[in-house]
């Protein structure tokens, strides 16, 4: 039995609702509802490999600034966002930190590092 899944394309203000038809093995059978080719590309990515950049803050020690903004250096699977945030909730950093410094290497074995988005001074 083929099943259907819908996505909203974020490529332009149109926001097409694209319906994907997938067979029982997960193979894509077709796209419907997209008004351009970009929609197909976007939905293919969202279906096969939906990734996001995780952004958060981590607690600091020995700094007047209570938090440091951090991000993953590359996008990670969106299903990993909550787990990733949980790791960062337990992470603490000490100054000095410069933008781009690695805060958590290889987050949850994704191969992606969490890096500082901002500087931290004491």
């Amino acid at each position, binding site marked *: 039995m083929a099943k259907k899944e819908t996505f*909203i394309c*974020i490529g332009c*203000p149109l926001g097409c609702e694209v319906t994907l038809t997938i067979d029982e093995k997960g193979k894509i059978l077709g796209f419907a509802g997209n008004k351009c080719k970009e929609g197909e590309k976007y939905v293919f990515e969202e279906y096969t490999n939906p990734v996001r*950049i995780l*952004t958060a803050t981590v607690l600091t020690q020995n700094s007047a600034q*209570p938090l440091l*903004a951090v*991000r993953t250096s590359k996008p990670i699977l969106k299903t990993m966002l909550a787990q990733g*945030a949980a790791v960062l909730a337990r992470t603490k950093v000490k100054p000095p930190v410069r933008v781009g410094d690695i805060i958590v290497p290889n987050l949850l074995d994704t191969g992606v590092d969490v890096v500082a988005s*901002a500087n931290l001074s004491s």
Partner: protein
Amino acid sequence: MKLQDIDVAVIGAGPAGMAAAIRAREAGAENVIIMERAEELGGLLHQCVHNGFGLLYFNEDLTGPEYGNRFIEKVMDTGVKPLLETMVVKLTEDRQIGAVNAKEGFITFRPKSVVLAMGCRERSRGALNIPGSRPSGVLTAGTAQRFVNVEGFLPGKRIVILGSGDIGMIMARRLTLEGAKVEAVVEILPYIGGLIRNEVQCLHDFDIPLYLQHTVTQIHGEERVTAVTIAKVDADRNPVPGTQRKIQCDSLLLSAGLIPENELSLMAGIRLDPVTGGAVVDETRQTNIAGVFAGGNVLHVHDLVDNVSWESELAGESAAKFAMERDLGEKGTINLKAGTNIRYIVPQTISGQRDTTLYMRVNEPQENVRIKIGDIMTKTVRAVKPSEMIKIELSSEKLQKVNKETKEIIVSCEKRGGK
């Protein structure tokens, strides 16, 4: 640098002010200062820890602090002088600035030109007229953002967000990832107030319910918010009787619009556009007061910081030129008038002599349209939405078609027909 010798004074050190000051220096102004009431440069960017900044300007997906940092470094490198913890409290029609800080008390000076870059603030509960008691737990989305991302406090555990502006949706995701439960995002209009990417990546990704054409009709709780009542609204945005439903929560976040912060502009007698809430400017971003320019959210609320930076660079460049030459050449004599489905256009006036980028917004979402700039040019656009700003480049070559006597050009957004 003596205050008497200042060429360009920029008011506000957010993304707009930094871009304007940097460009003013690059364009040759010698003494450029940037006046900021906070203790550091960067404005709101510090608390916008999410990504999506700089996709257009740097061709990179940056977070707010990263985007801000690049400009902060450039402010330093170009020799702009920041005057921090200094609040401008006075601006006169002859460009006198009065400011206060803890070190010097009240200072007053007259720079050769001024760039207004005060940004905007959020519409608060008072401006929304929500009935109910006055418990704690009602705050704007931006205040919540500061608590969560800068101060390190979670403002609540069960949250309802009124309004689907970008900050509200971004906070829905942020609060969810920090362990709060976002019960609902409630939007009075039939469509979201922010960008589609935020609806998908902040609401859908986390299964946060979005109630379109709904509003909050009551806030419950004495000491602390205990619940809100929401209801469906009709076409006139009035609550429909019988559709009320109570949602238990401990906080209500408001993300219902931004208002340019123009008290200083009004004090100086700068003419404001009643639709944008910002100054009326020509394509150099000069206001009706010679030598006073404006850029960024103080001029009109943008959805992307990239455009704030570009627009403010233009204001900064014009301010530098005015400081050095006392004259910018042709003034804006042609009015751009909003026609069918156009809410506003910035700049409001043009000289017709220079390349110009027009920024505009529509009133209603529409598909498959043609945007007409008088009979000078038309541009076909697949879809337009009030929340997504439209940018149209108007070359001086195209503008040569404009008759010298032209006083007004109507900009309209019309459905493409006959196909």
